[in-house]
């Protein structure tokens, strides 16, 4: 299977190697198209956002107003802070120029003069790698004034985060760039109308943008036929936890979860049974080990087991692991990262953590599970941003899927 995002080519970080395999031909082609033709091509591809929400990219682009006097902005989201997600850093490290080329095409299609690539502060090494690639592209005048001798000028800057999960949320990310305390904003207004500095703004994930040069070169229709029909393309599946060969594997959407774990990630360590899978970062509802047979990894298929693809960061958890220990650690994360703006999230995550720690210590009582679900239900949907939901779902759905096991654990310690 052809790899679209991370081809097995050594030295692809260097602009000459990237150009040697046809790099920067898509932007040249795009510059001869009209912005609307590009947006139509992306719509035809059915590309959906790779940051977790799976929103159709072409549709998102079409929300940007065309007749406006205001400057427009593009933010490329590389905050990558959802636990178990480690895919965007592979792009910064192994194929930065395709990300730059995708950013240029998006900027041209959207009429953007400045793009900000937002990268989490901890990724200092990867910021340096991408900056090196950006510098190379500036030197060749692929970024900057009148790129490729066209009349289109555009700049790309990296904005370094500083260790806050919430900044991966698009409105928080914009406040972070503006130099404000990065609380998420209420929506509406949406970024396409009122984004950075009150101007039209589009925010796309790093992996999403890296797909764009392929779509322009090979066509939206070609792309739409890869993988799962309603969620086409490839995904960078990041496999971690109790497996023999953890890592990022680029495979088509709709690949069998069992193939990813057993054929690519080398199976479970010590040949143990799988107790639980988290399919797309820790906020996604978990899947039980007995549900994974014939389960395909794409947005639609995961609905059948009550979960979602998220960032495609797959955590494999074997039969010996204590579910409560996992859930407590996940909840501690969301409690720590809650920005404190909304009461249900700020207080609720702390309450859930206290109850879970009590259960972990063996001091749980039988009413604790209903109490946890009640708190989770009162957080979900009652906050400005989705962090509240991200904190509520693991609690709610882990209890739903593993209630008997957790009850037995509480009962044993009574």
């Amino acid at each position, binding site marked *: 299977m052809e790899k679209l995002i991370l081809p097995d080519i050594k030295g692809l970080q260097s602009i000459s190697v990237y150009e040697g395999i046809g790099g920067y031909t898509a932007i040249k082609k795009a510059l001869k198209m009209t912005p609307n033709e590009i947006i139509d091509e992306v719509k035809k591809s059915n590309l959906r956002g790779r940051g977790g929400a799976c929103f159709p990219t072409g549709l998102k682009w079409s929300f940007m107003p065309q007749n406006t006097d205001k*400057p427009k902005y593009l933010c490329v989201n590389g905050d*990558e*802070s*959802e*636990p*178990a*997600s*480690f895919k965007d*850093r592979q792009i910064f490290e192994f194929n930065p120029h395709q990300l730059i080329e995708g950013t240029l095409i998006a900027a041209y299609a959207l009429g953007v003069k*400045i793009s900000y690539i937002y990268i*989490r*502060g*901890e*990724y*200092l*090494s990867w910021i340096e790698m991408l900056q090196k690639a950006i510098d190379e592209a500036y030197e060749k005048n692929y970024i900057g004034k009148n790129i490729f001798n066209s009349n289109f000028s555009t*700049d790309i*800057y990296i*904005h*370094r*985060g*500083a*260790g*806050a*999960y919430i900044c991966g949320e698009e409105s928080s990310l914009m406040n*972070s*760039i*503006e*130099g*404000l*305390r*990065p609380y998420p904003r209420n929506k509406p207004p949406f970024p396409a109308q009122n984004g950075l*500095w009150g101007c039209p703004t589009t925010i796309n994930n790093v992996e999403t943008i890296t797909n764009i040069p392929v779509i322009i070169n090979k066509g939206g229709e070609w792309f739409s036929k890869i993988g799962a029909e309603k969620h086409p393309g490839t995904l960078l599946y*990041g*496999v*971690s*936890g*109790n497996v023999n060969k*953890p*890592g*990022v594997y680029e495979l088509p959407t709709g690949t069998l979860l069992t193939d990813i774990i057993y054929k690519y990630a080398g199976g479970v360590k010590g040949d143990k049974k799988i107790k639980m899978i*988290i399919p797309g970062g*820790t906020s996604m509802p978990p899947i039980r080990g007995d549900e994974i047979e014939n389960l395909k990894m794409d947005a639609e298929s995961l609905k059948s087991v009550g979960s979602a693809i998220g960032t495609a*960061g797959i*955590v494999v*958890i074997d039969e010996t*692991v204590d579910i409560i*220990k*996992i859930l407590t*650690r*996940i909840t501690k*994360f969301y409690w*720590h*990262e809650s*920005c404190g703006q909304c009461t249900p999230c700020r207080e609720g995550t702390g309450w859930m953590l206290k109850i879970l720690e009590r259960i972990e210590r063996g001091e749980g009582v039988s009413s604790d599970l209903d109490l946890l679900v009640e708190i989770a239900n009162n957080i979900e949907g009652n906050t400005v941003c989705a962090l509240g939901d991200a904190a509520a779902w693991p609690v709610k759905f882990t209890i739903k899927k593993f209630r008997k096991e957790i009850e037995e654990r509480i009962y044993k310690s009574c």
Partner: protein
Amino acid sequence: MINEEELLKIENIKRKYPDSKAALMPVLYLFQEKYGFISVDSIKEISQLLNISEVDIKGVVSFYEMFHEKPKGKYIVQVCTNISCMLCNSENILKAVEKKLGIKCGETTKDNLFTLEEVECLGSCGTAPVISINNRYYENMTEEKINSLFDNLK
């Protein structure tokens, strides 16, 4: 006080944004690199440089994990304990680092060389467990590797 070369750097940072207030985070990094932390005096100076009120700067500094208002050790040692690392023995890695440095999480060694912190997911789940030292990652960490890692740093 910052020097002319740094002032030039700040001017270049400002050029990346239509509003100079947006230069705040990169400028905070510049000050932190120079002084090791963001002091009250630095906040005053940045306030004048970027025309942002001191209280707004304080609001930004206090929000982010990576800006600190008090000095830390020369090496900031961070051990990830989120679930992918947890499933790969991070608890014992953390204990081994505590033993090696003779301090607990959140503490700094008496010689001000090391500050130890337990942190959230660093995005090294495929190469877990991970330790970050001054934002450089040491991946696939084992208890055996810890001794040589720290001996090389002193």
